């Protein structure tokens, strides 16, 4: 089509929007809100995932020595473990240190430990962290095979529960987002259909005088793209801006949290929302197009 024909289609699309501004605003806001919700869940999910990953990699595997193992053997085992490529840190925790930690963890209830008297039921152990979270299990198995080690533990339960929780959050977020997207799709479709009904006479005349079907369709395609697009621009701008803002304030107040820097991720999510919004408009037109054929 020629440029002035595009201008004609755009003008027709605009008139459709202006003819029913309330519906246009409703379409744009529902699109923006649903995309924004989706975006926020994506951002949360990405970050919770990052936090969980870092928590998992910090999980220490403890390898406990038998009572009869000599300190020199313990030291040599420590050296061996430090040589493993998947190990990040390894330290020897004596039973005295372990008892002190335990007292600290018990806080003001530490008195219960006094009943032990001078006896220390704890064992010397190695505290080992892995380079990567997926190495944790391997490290635990290798530690168990060391001579003098009686048993190993790591907090796999905590981590797997954390991951299950993240997964649930992600599914719920996705479900809410998808439901909202369907809602906004219906609103957009409705807006396009009302436009078709309002332009019934025009469409009839266009076909009568020999306008091609693509020229009949384009004003409505553009209408869908405008509705979806404006909603998407609002949502993706808001998502991007709020991510950057939230990231900077979180980094200041919670510096220990391993949050995902906005530089690639906020932009990617904003782009994704933009594409989704435009897609909504296109799909909205696609759904309404059968109505157009009957006019």
């Amino acid at each position, binding site marked *: *089509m*020629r440029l*002035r*024909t595009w201008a*004609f289609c755009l003008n027709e699309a605009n008139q459709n929007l202006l003819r029913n501004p309330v519906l246009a605003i409703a379409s744009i806001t529902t699109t923006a809100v649903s995309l924004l919700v989706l975006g926020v869940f994506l951002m949360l999910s990405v970050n919770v995932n990052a936090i969980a990953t870092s928590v998992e990699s910090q999980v220490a595997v403890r390898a406990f020595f038998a009572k009869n193992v000599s300190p020199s053997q313990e030291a040599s085992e420590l050296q061996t473990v430090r040589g493993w490529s998947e190990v990040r840190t390894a330290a020897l925790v004596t039973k005295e240190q372990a008892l002190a930690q335990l007292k600290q963890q018990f806080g003001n209830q530490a008195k219960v430990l006094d009943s032990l008297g001078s006896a220390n039921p704890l064992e010397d152990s190695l505290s080992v962290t892995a380079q990567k979270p997926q190495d944790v299990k391997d490290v635990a198995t290798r530690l168990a095979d060391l001579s003098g080690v009686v048993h190993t533990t790591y907090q796999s339960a905590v981590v797997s529960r954390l991951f299950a929780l993240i997964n649930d959050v992600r599914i719920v977020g996705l479900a809410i987002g998808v439901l909202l997207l369907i809602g906004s799709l219906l609103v957009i479709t409705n807006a396009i259909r009302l436009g078709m009904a309002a332009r019934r*006479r*025009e469409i*009839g*005349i*266009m*076909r*009568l*005088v*020999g*306008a*091609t*079907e693509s*020229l009949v369709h384009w004003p409505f395609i553009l209408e869908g793209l405008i509705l979806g697009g404006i909603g998407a621009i609002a949502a993706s701008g808001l998502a991007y801006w709020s991510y950057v803002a939230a990231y900077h304030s979180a980094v200041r107040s919670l510096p220990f949290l391993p949050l995902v820097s906005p530089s690639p991720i906020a932009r990617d999510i904003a782009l994704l929302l933009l594409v989704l919004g435009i897609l909504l408009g296109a799909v909205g037109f696609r759904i309404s197009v059968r109505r157009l054929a009957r006019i």
Partner: protein
Amino acid sequence: MISVRRVQKVYPNGVTALRDVDLEIAKGEFVFLVGPSGAGKTTLLRLLFREEVPTSGAVIVNGHDVGRMRPRQIPYLRRQIGVVFQDFRLLPQRNVQENIAFALRVIEVHPREIKRRVAQVLELVGLSDRGFALPAQLSGGEQQRVALARAMVGRPVMLLADEPTGNLDPQNAEDMMRIMLEINRLGTTVVMATHAAHLVDRARQRVVAMADGAIQRDELAASYHVEVTR
């Protein structure tokens, strides 16, 4: 120009609108389609601009078999055909010039050419001074002349009119008839379905009389009713 061969049209609801209709119309002819309501005049016209397809038989318009035409070719057929209806079908929020120009804008004619042709066709229908009026500000006769101008602005080889004077008072109907005869004189084939007996009688053109979906009479230089030999 138009060749209708053994055409039958049965609507999905079972009504038979046309039975075995044969009709040949040459280039440059003026043809009245007459007959009572429900005789099949409108259906016949709608077949010619491919608003309907025949149930059986063939409709050949300007060399194209309209019934077997691919959908994407339809717009190009319609650019060769002007159509006027009883109910004008103007766009109420656009003025006269815009209504006429609309027909050319949607087939991507250059704006300069549109301007030139709109002025020409407004002169043809005698509305050069009403270009900026809205349809609501015009009389019925003027509105129908705008519709006629819109049908003609694409320079069609044929004009189809479905009871174009049905909503007009006698004076306006006569003006309309005069313009349509003028259009025909300039070379456009015209097919006009009508109930206006006095217009048909005055014009002395070919008359095709229909009843119950079939052609009853086809005479040159004829009148609305069967003429008794004087």
